[in-house]
C-alpha cells in the first residue's frame, strides 16, 4: 500500500479513538467509532485476496449493525433523559442496549461469532490492531456509562470467558486462537467493570502487552498455523523459550505477569461476596490454558532433535525490529513482583 494512504489510515485510526476518548456527547463518540471502523476497512483489505475481502465484509456488516444500534441507543437515551451526556444513563433499557451494542463491537460472547472468522482473514499486523487498538474506544464507552444492573456485565463476562476457552479447543489456525483468546480476556475485563473500573483498565493494559508480544513473536517467524510453529527452533531459537512463557502468561499462570489481573479480579470479586462466580471464572480460564499449552507443546516441548516437523518455509525479510518485542516480552514475563507498585498507581 502506498505510504501516504497507509499513513492517512493509521492517523485516522488514532483520530477515531481519540475523538471517542475526548467526547461527552453521544454523536461525537459514535462518530469516533465510525471513523475507526472506516479507517481499518482498507487496512484489512490491503491484501486483495478473497479471504481478506471476506473478512473485511464480515467486519463491516457486524460493526455497522453495532454502530446503528449504538446510535439508536444513544438517541433513545437523549430522548428519555433530555441529556446527550454519555455518563448519564439512568434507564436500564438504554444502558443495556448500549452495552450490548458495544459488546458486539468488541466481540464479547454471545455476540462473538464474527471475531475468529474476521481475524483469520487478516495479516498479523492488522489482526494485532483489531485485537488491541479497536477495543479501546468501545471499552472506554462501556467504562463511562453507569452500571445500573451489573448482571449484564457478569453474564457477558462469564459467557465470554467460557466461550473464549471452549471455542479455541479445536483450532489449529493461530489467528483464530488469538481471536478466542481476545474474547476470553475481554470477558475478564467486562466481568470486573461494574465492580472496579480501574481493574478493568489494568486488565486491558496487561492484555495489550501480552498480545502485542505474542503477535510480534508470530510476525517474526511468519507463522499462522500450529504446524509452522514447530520450525521456530530452526529460525529464531530464543523464541522457543520466550513464546511459551508468553503463552503461559496469557493463560494466567503464576509467577508470570498474566496472573496479576486474574488475581486482582478474583480478589475484588471475593470482596463483593461473589465467590461462586469467581470460582467459575477461574476454572473456565483453564480451558484457554489448554490450547495455549498445546501451542507451546508444538513449539518447544516437542522440539525434534534434528529434522523439523513441518516443511521449511522460505526465510524472507531478514530485517527484524525486535525492540518492541523485547520490551513487551520482558514485561509479559517479569512484571508480577511489581504488583503492589502497579496497584498503588490505580485510582481507587
Amino acid at each position, binding site marked *: 500500500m502506498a505510504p501516504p494512504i497507509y499513513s492517512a489510515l493509521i492517523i485516522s485510526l488514532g483520530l477515531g479513538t481519540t475523538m471517542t476518548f475526548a467526547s461527552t456527547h453521544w454523536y461525537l463518540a459514535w462518530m469516533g467509532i465510525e471513523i475507526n471502523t472506516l479507517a481499518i476497512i482498507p487496512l484489512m483489505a490491503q491484501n486483495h485476496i478473497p479471504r481478506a475481502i471476506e473478512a473485511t465484509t464480515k467486519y463491516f456488516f457486524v460493526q455497522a449493525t453495532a454502530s446503528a444500534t449504538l446510535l439508536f441507543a444513544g438517541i433513545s437515551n437523549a430522548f428519555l433523559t433530555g441529556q446527550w451526556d454519555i455518563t448519564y444513563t439512568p434507564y436500564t433499557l438504554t444502558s443495556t442496549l448500549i452495552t450490548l451494542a458495544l459488546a458486539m463491537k468488541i466481540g464479547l460472547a454471545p455476540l462473538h461469532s464474527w471475531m475468529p472468522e474476521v481475524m483469520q482473514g487478516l495479516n498479523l499486523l492488522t489482526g494485532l490492531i483489531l485485537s488491541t487498538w479497536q477495543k479501546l474506544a468501545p471499552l472506554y464507552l462501556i467504562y463511562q456509562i453507569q452500571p445500573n444492573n451489573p448482571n449484564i456485565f457478569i453474564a457477558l463476562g462469564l459467557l465470554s470467558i467460557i466461550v473464549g476457552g471452549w471455542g479455541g479447543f479445536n483450532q489449529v489456525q493461530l489467528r483464530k486462537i488469538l481471536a478466542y483468546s481476545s474474547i476470553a480476556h475481554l470477558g475478564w475485563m467486562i466481568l470486573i467493570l461494574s465492580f472496579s473500573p480501574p481493574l478493568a483498565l489494568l486488565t486491558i493494559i496487561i492484555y495489550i502487552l501480552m498480545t502485542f508480544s505474542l503477535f510480534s513473536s508470530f510476525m517474526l517467524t511468519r507463522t499462522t498455523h500450529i504446524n509452522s510453529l514447530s520450525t521456530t527452533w530452526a529460525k529464531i531459537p530464543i523464541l522457543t523459550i520466550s513464546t511459551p512463557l508468553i503463552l503461559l502468561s496469557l493463560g494466567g499462570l*503464576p*509467577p508470570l505477569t498474566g496472573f496479576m489481573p486474574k488475581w486482582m479480579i478474583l480478589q475484588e470479586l*471475593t470482596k463483593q461476596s461473589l465467590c461462586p462466580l469467581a470460582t467459575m471464572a477461574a476454572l473456565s480460564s483453564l480451558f484457554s*490454558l489448554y490450547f495455549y499449552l498445546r501451542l507451546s507443546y508444538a513449539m518447544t516441548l516437542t522440539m525434534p532433535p534434528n529434522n523439523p516437523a513441518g516443511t521449511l518455509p522460505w526465510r524472507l525479510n531478514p530485517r527484524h525490529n525486535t525492540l518492541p518485542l523485547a520490551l513487551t516480552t520482558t514485561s509479559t514475563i517479569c512484571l508480577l513482583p511489581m504488583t503492589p507498585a502497579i496497584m498503588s498507581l490505580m485510582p481507587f
Partner: protein
Amino acid sequence: MLKILIPSILLLPSTWLTPQKYLWTTTLSYSLLIASASLMWLATPSETGWSFLNCLMASDPISTPLLVLTCWLLPLMVLASQNHLMLEPINRQRTFISLLISLQIFLILAFSATELIMFYIMFEATLIPTLIIITRWGNQMERLNAGTYFLFYTLAGSLPLLIALLLLQNSTGTLSFFTIPYLPSTCSTPWAHKMWWTACLLAFLIKMPLYGAHLWLPKAHVEAPIAGSMILAAVLLKLGGYGMMRILIILDPLTKELSYPFIILALWGVIMTGSICLRQTDLKALIAYSSVSHMGLVAAGILIQTPWAFTGALILMIAHGLTSSALFCLANTNYERTHSRTMILARGLQTLLPLTAVWWFIATLANLALPPLPNLMGELMIITSLFNWSMWTLILTGLGTLITAGYSLYMFLMTQHGQLPHHLISLNPPHSREHLLLTLHLMPLLLLILKPELIWGWNA
C-alpha cells in the same frame, strides 16, 4: 535465609557463563556447597517458633527439614542427569540445569514463605519448570499427556484455593503465618464454610496425592526424566503435605467432621495403590504407586492433627523423599543400560551388577519401613496416632504395611534375584557417579537414625 537463596539465584548466571568443559563439575560443586550451607537451618534455636526471620521468609521446625531436603536434592539431580544429557547440545544442557535451579529457588521461597499468598504463588510457580522438564526431556510419547494431566489436575485444585485464600484475607485482613493461628475462626453460613474448607484443602490433597485424584502422579513420574522424577517424588509431593500442615491451623473446628471422608479415602488409597504395585510390569510405575501409598498415609496422618501424627507425617515425608528418590535413581541405572522400564527385561541383576544390588537392598528395606530407619519411625507414629483416633484404622494401616512389605520385596526379588534373562550378556558396570548418587541419598537416611530430632517438627 538469603545466604542460601541468593547463591541459588546466582547459580543461574554461573550455569550460562561456565565453559562447556566445566559445566557439570561447577554446577555440582556449587550446588553441593549450597546444600551443605543449608544445613545451618537445622540448628533452630527456638523449638516451636520461627527462626532465620526476615519480613517475607522464615523457617520453623516443620519447614526446615523440607528446605534442607530441597537444597540437598539439587546436587543429586545434577549428578543423576549428567549421563542422559551428555549427548545434547550445550545450550540445552544449560537450559535443563537452569530449570532445576529455578525449581530450587521457587521451592526455597515456597517452604520459607511467611504469607499464604506467597506460598500459593510459589506453589504454582513450581509447576512451570516441572512441566517443561517432563514434557521436553521425557522419553516417550506419553509425556505430553503426562504434562497436561500434571498441570491441569494441580490447577483445578489450586484455583479454588486462591479464592479461599482471598476470602480469608478479606475476612481477617491478613494471611501471615505469624498471626493466623491467633485469629478467631471465621464461621459464616454452614454450607459456605464447608465449601471454603474444601477449597482450602483440595489443592494440597490433589498434590499429595489423595487416592481419588492421583491419576496425574503415575503418568508424571513415569514419563519424567530422572531429575524430574526425583524432584517430583522427593519434594513436590511434600509441598502438598506442608501446605496442608500450615493451613489446617485455620480450618478448625470443621476439620473434626469434614476430614472423615478424606482420611478414609487416603487409607483406602494406601491399600489400593499397594495392591496395584503388586501387579505392575513397569518399574517406575511401581515406584510411583508406592509414592501414592506412602503419601496416603501421610495425608491421613496430617488430617487427624495430633502432635504424634504431625511428627510422623513429617518424618515419613523426609524419609520417603530420600527413599523414593533413591529408588528412582536405581530404576534409572536400569533404564540407562537397557532403555526399558519393563521389569521382566532386567531380572536377576545381582549377578551382573552386584554393587548396585547392595543399594537396591538398602533402598528396598527403607521402602518397606525396616527398623531402625526413619521410615519406620514415621509410619509407626502415624499408625499409632490413627489407632488412637479410631481403632478400626488399624485394619487398614496394618494391611497397608503388609502390602507395602509385599510389593517392596516383589520389586527387589524381581529385579535382583532369580535367573538372568538370556539376552543380558553384559551391562556397563555401575559408574562411581552412580555410587556417589546413591550414597548421598541413603547416607542421610542412615544418619537420621542417630538424630531423628532434626525431623520431628514441633515435637523436638
